[in-house]
């Protein structure tokens, strides 16, 4: 029972973006296109998984006094690996994400999970926590991107497969999109409304339990 909870808590109850409010900088910055959100999400899942595993493995080896610098070294190494692999094998995505790939280092979700969870738990639980939090982060990011891109640009950009160019055009919206939604202020608006929605749903659930 508890094992499943380590995984599912990140999806909704402790969703890193909507509930714990961690990692908002990349959320606001790369959520302009769905494909960027998915790519960023994949990068974060990989780094989170790597850092959580190593922090949990080394929890008895790393002295308390230098735990933060040690975590940063571990996280930065994984981010650099993601950056190099992305640049070599998926250069188009790397071009789109740009500066936000190296910035995964300072994504609070990752250091937050290392400090709050991985260093006090077993490797197995840390893996589940990383997967749950990473997928929760990706889902939340994709949701924001889907709303922002469809309203702000009138398109939905996915991966190009075969004849499909990768971009879906929404008939009426692509002619007259609400550009503000695509800008930074739009990101905050969408984020705020979604946070409100999550709070409302959460409150209703709590009442139902009572």
């Amino acid at each position, binding site marked *: 029972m508890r094992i499943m909870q380590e995984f599912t808590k990140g999806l909704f109850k402790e969703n890193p973006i909507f509930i714990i409010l961690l990692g908002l900088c990349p959320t606001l*910055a*790369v959520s*302009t*296109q769905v494909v*960027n959100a998915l790519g960023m999400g994949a990068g974060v899942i990989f780094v989170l998984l790597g850092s959580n595993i190593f922090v949990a493995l*080394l929890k008895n*080896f*790393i*002295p308390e*006094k*230098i735990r933060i*610098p*040690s975590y940063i*070294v*571990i996280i*930065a*190494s994984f981010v*650099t*690996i993601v950056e*190099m*692999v992305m*640049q*070599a*094998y998926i*250069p188009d995505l790397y*071009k*789109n*994400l*740009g*500066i*936000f790939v190296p910035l995964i280092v300072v994504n609070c979700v990752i250091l937050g999970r290392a400090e709050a969870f991985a260093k006090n738990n077993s490797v197995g639980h840390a893996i589940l926590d990383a997967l749950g939090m990473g997928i929760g982060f990706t889902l939340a990011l994709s949701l924001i991107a889907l709303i922002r*891109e469809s309203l702000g*640009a009138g398109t939905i950009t996915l991966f190009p497969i075969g004849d499909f160019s990768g971009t879906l055009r929404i008939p009426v919206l692509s002619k007259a999109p609400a*550009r503000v939604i*695509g*800008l*930074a202020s739009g990101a905050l608006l969408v984020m705020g409304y979604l946070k409100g929605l999550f709070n409302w749903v959460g409150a209703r659930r709590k009442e139902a339990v009572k």
Partner: protein
Amino acid sequence: MKSFAVIGGKLALICAIAATALGFVNNLTEPRIREFKAKQLEEALSAVVVRGKAGEEKPVEGVPGVLSYYPIEERNNALGYILKLIGAGYGGDMVLLASYDTEGVIQAVRLMENQETPGLGKEAEKDQYMEKFIGTGGKNPIPVRKSQLTQEQADSITGASITFIGIAKALETGAVFLETLED
């Protein structure tokens, strides 16, 4: 004192292992990245040449904003130049490839390495973004302010004015440099 050494040693060990792992990954990915970059440059060079062929790259020193140039020739006739320019963007320096004819009129522009914001400044990587500059230069001034653009062109730079100004100023610097090259 002893605990100090233990802590320092452990941190150094973690760093050493991380550095080894990174060196290993770099070894695997570096040739592919280099190959990709070379291919990208070649592609961009042929894309900005409208007519003729790009010659050898010639480095430029002492001119801020201009890295190098390639002469464009056709049967030994000089048709113009491709300039490799540096512009100041929102996320740091941007590298541009721009071709000019011998009169200094812009033929084509390509935005190369940059750290602009996806969905905003990054839109400048698309060919249609650069259409606003093509045909300007020489007698027509290169647009460097939003007020010099049509409504549709101005809409395309909304939220990314710094990128636009960076590109426009770099193209202007290039045009000025070309005049010195012609003499």
